[in-house]
């Protein structure tokens, strides 16, 4: 029985190993290092870092309170709303991109925002918006689960001891749910770093302007610059591995990672 089940495990491991080796074997270390230091990749790395961190911060601000409401309160239409909020996780990236373009385009919300001087379309801000769209649902889901696993009795105890509701949240609830929220945040960050469809449509594929790492991979595969594409992919993959390791040390179960669609 055990031997029977080990075989699929080995096959699966070989498949992943095979893909990673096939991808990076043609890339000589010298070329990889040179490409990694190229201005294009350095720009893409910097832009990916700043946009994804900004998107993660926005996602936490939006997702943690949302998760709390969903965990602690019931209201009509909650199940519908809950399903609705998960939609970005299952949408085809390019369709999400087209939807975001329609929303943030000149004839949509984008026209209104640009009157106030906020340009989302064709700017790095567009990349942030696209990343929030896919990252915020992850924060919402994981913080909801974290809050749900906490008995409200702790909050009641805090209140009977004289803490105002706001302080109860920040001094009792949030610290206790912290680990769950943090692991959700790391996943959301990973998702934001890998976001592609929305960035392509809303921010565009402008080199040295809206060129995040996934856009750099796409542009360079299309123009046949495999080395540059693979170097960018190498950074993305290293970031992915680092994030998975981080999650593991935080004690999150791998099952959660699968459920949350880690790219």
């Amino acid at each position, binding site marked *: 029985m055990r031997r029977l089940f080990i075989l699929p495990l080995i096959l699966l491991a070989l498949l992943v190993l095979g893909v990673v080796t096939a991808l990076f074997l043609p890339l000589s270390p010298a070329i990889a290092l040179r490409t990694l230091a190229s201005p294009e990749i350095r720009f893409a790395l910097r832009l990916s870092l700043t946009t994804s961190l900004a998107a993660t911060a926005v996602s936490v601000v939006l997702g943690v309170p949302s998760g709390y409401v969903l965990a602690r309160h019931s209201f009509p239409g909650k199940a519908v709303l809950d399903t609705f909020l998960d939609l970005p996780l299952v949408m085809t990236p390019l369709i999400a991109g087209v939807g975001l373009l329609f929303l943030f385009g*000149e*004839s949509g919300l984008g026209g209104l925002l640009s009157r106030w001087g906020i340009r989302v379309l064709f700017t790095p801000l567009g990349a942030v918006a696209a990343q929030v769209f896919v990252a915020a649902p992850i924060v919402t889901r994981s913080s909801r689960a974290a809050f749900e696993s906490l008995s409200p009795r702790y909050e009641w105890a805090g209140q009977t001891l004289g803490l105002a509701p706001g302080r109860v949240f920040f001094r009792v609830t949030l610290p206790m749910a912290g680990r769950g929220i943090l692991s959700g945040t790391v996943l959301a960050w990973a998702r934001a770093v890998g976001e592609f469809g929305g960035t*392509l449509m809303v921010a565009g*594929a402008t080199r040295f302007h809206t060129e995040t790492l996934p856009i750099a991979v796409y542009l360079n*595969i*299309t123009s046949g610059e495999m080395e540059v594409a693979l170097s960018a992919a190498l950074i993305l993959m290293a970031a992915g591995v680092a994030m998975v390791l981080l999650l593991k040390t935080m004690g999150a179960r791998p099952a959660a990672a699968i459920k949350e669609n880690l790219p």
Partner: protein
Amino acid sequence: MRNRTISCCALVWVFTVLLSLFPAANGFAEELILLAGAGLRRPTDVLVDRFEQQTGHRILTAYDGGGRLITRIQASGQGDLFMPGALFHIEALEKKGLIRSVRPLVAHTAVVGVSAAAVDRIRSFEDLARPGIRLALGDPQAMALGRTARTIMQRAGLEKEILQNTVVYGATVKQLALYVARGDVDASIIGRADAFQCRDRMTMIPIPPAWFQPETIAVAVLQSSRHPDIAEAFCAFMASEESLSVFGEFGFLPLEK
């Protein structure tokens, strides 16, 4: 009871799948793989349908950018027919001895696609250089049309001004056409067929032919073809007057003789 319904459904499904796997049941029908440029999808879909009905053979079409199709042909060593959006991709495979025969079909020219909202501001190519105009262009490394656009503005002597007006670069021509059609930019340099297919939302301004070389769309039989005779028949079908007029309906122009 419910179980029986489910197993019945499953059986029917398995049967349909099996049937679709063996279309050859009706005699000599064969399956050919056509790798075609994504921009040629609409006329190609119509013509592939017609060919299948006339001959009973099946053509499986894979659409993608020319560069990625080449990668696929070389990596897999498979495929019968190749019809990219630019002759240059066929020539690249020809140099490697992977092409059996080539048949030119139609021309694909570049035009300025102008958004309906900007028609009063952009009436000529030179208007693209006016201050305040918002343009989208193809990435010159990733898109053949991006390179063509660069050549065009250099020959027009307006490269600096036009680049200054460019607010976004796209990776595919459909992306550029979408921006123009929705009015997110005022104009773009795109393929005539792409502008033509969105003609209810944009107008076209022709670009002087002296400024660029129109692309030739051609269909080639690959060396890897397992049914070269059927593949040749498909090429002849595509080059027939009737088929070329279908290309015309989607905005492609006849080749200059």
